[in-house]
């Protein structure tokens, strides 16, 4: 067992556990977005940044940092709240997240995080770049306007379904999640149509066709259930 403290609380953790897992067991909530139980951690969104006091105040992503003996972790502080808010605001400014006009309105992780972290407005200028919607798939659609590039769909497809249909193309804010080598989703030869990517998506970027907003509630927990062959709840 490894002993560490998070927000001043002494915690025992298993070797190989991440700071996020240890915090969760201790009942300490750390906000996450790109992390999803059942998928490999990626540390992409930086919302779970925590400060390790005895590492010179270094900021590390809780989801991808293994616990170490004697770690003194700060998970909640004014500095961290400000950093998390800034990250969220950049995500909102980067693409066209218009909650009132989104299929995931009311059950979106990005929208919930904004409320949780007290984001009442976005201080950065919005980019308003034009992004497209691909509705070529028979059952599902992808709206790049809503994508936060968390990669949960990419990992769900590769790690759980084993199809590796999704991947990233482009660079920086122009990065797109694309099927196969940029084919319209409906023409993908590798997509099995399982829909795990849709369930994994935290926003309205991936959605089921023919379903109203109130019917679009997703079940991201199925990824861990399938991966660990848990009995269906």
């Amino acid at each position, binding site marked *: 067992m490894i002993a560490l403290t998070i927000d001043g609380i002494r915690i025992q953790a298993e070797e190989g556990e991440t700071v996020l897992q240890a915090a969760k067991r201790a009942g300490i909530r750390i906000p996450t977005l790109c992390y999803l139980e059942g998928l490999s951690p990626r540390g992409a969104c930086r919302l779970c940044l925590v400060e390790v006091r005895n590492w010179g105040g270094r900021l590390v992503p809780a989801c991808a940092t293994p616990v170490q003996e004697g770690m003194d972790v700060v998970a909640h502080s004014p500095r961290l709240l400000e950093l998390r808010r800034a990250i969220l605001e950049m995500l*909102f400014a980067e693409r*066209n997240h*218009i*909650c*009132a*006009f*989104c299929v995931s*309105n*009311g059950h979106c992780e990005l*929208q*919930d995080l*904004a*409320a*949780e972290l*007290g*984001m*009442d*407005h*976005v*201080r950065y*200028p*919005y980019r*308003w*770049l*034009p*992004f497209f919607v691909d509705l070529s798939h028979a059952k599902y659609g992808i709206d790049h306007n809503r994508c936060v590039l968390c990669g949960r769909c990419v990992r769900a497809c590769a790690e759980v379904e084993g199809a590796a249909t999704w991947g990233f193309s482009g660079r920086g804010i122009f990065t797109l999640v694309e099927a196969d080598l940029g084919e319209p989703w409906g023409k993908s030869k590798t997509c099995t149509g399982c829909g795990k990517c849709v369930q994994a998506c935290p926003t309205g970027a991936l959605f089921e066709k023919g379903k109203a907003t109130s019917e679009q509630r997703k079940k991201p927990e199925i990824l861990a259930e399938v991966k660990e062959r848990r009995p269906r709840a």
Partner: protein
Amino acid sequence: MPKLRVATVWFSGCSGCHMSFLDLDERLLEFAERAELVFSPIADIKEFPEDVDVVLVEGAVGNSEHLHMLLEIRKKAKVLVAFGDCAVTGNVSSLRNPLSREEVLRTVYGTEDPPGLEEGEVPKLLPHALPLHAVVPVDHFLPGCPPSADRIWKFLRPVLLGQKPALSGPDLKFG
């Protein structure tokens, strides 16, 4: 205690926030006891008055008239509140922002010379529908599309009592 001088303004929005304001129902009586509505789309007053204590601004800054008016009310009002998602983020009004202003107007009106393209009887449409804080300093943000009457009251009641409003958690939710 003199009555608080409150104004409400309607820019590029659907008036849903004002409908939600009217949804305050019997709470409007308490509002009327503590405040005087000195300018509003639901009151027949032509000029935005001087010395306004609090102004709730619904809608994004979509055209030259909104821009002109917002600069004026910022000078005349002590406390400016972005009222609803369009005022806070641009929201539905900003759906046109990734597209060209000219293309949007020509497509919508089906003519080469649509109103709003240039300054005329209809004010000129700005290239982007802007959130208020992109133009002037904003004192408070009241998100929601529309913010529910309960949320509006949670915000407004402390203001009427001379206290600082503080919305948090679920009361900040967009959409």
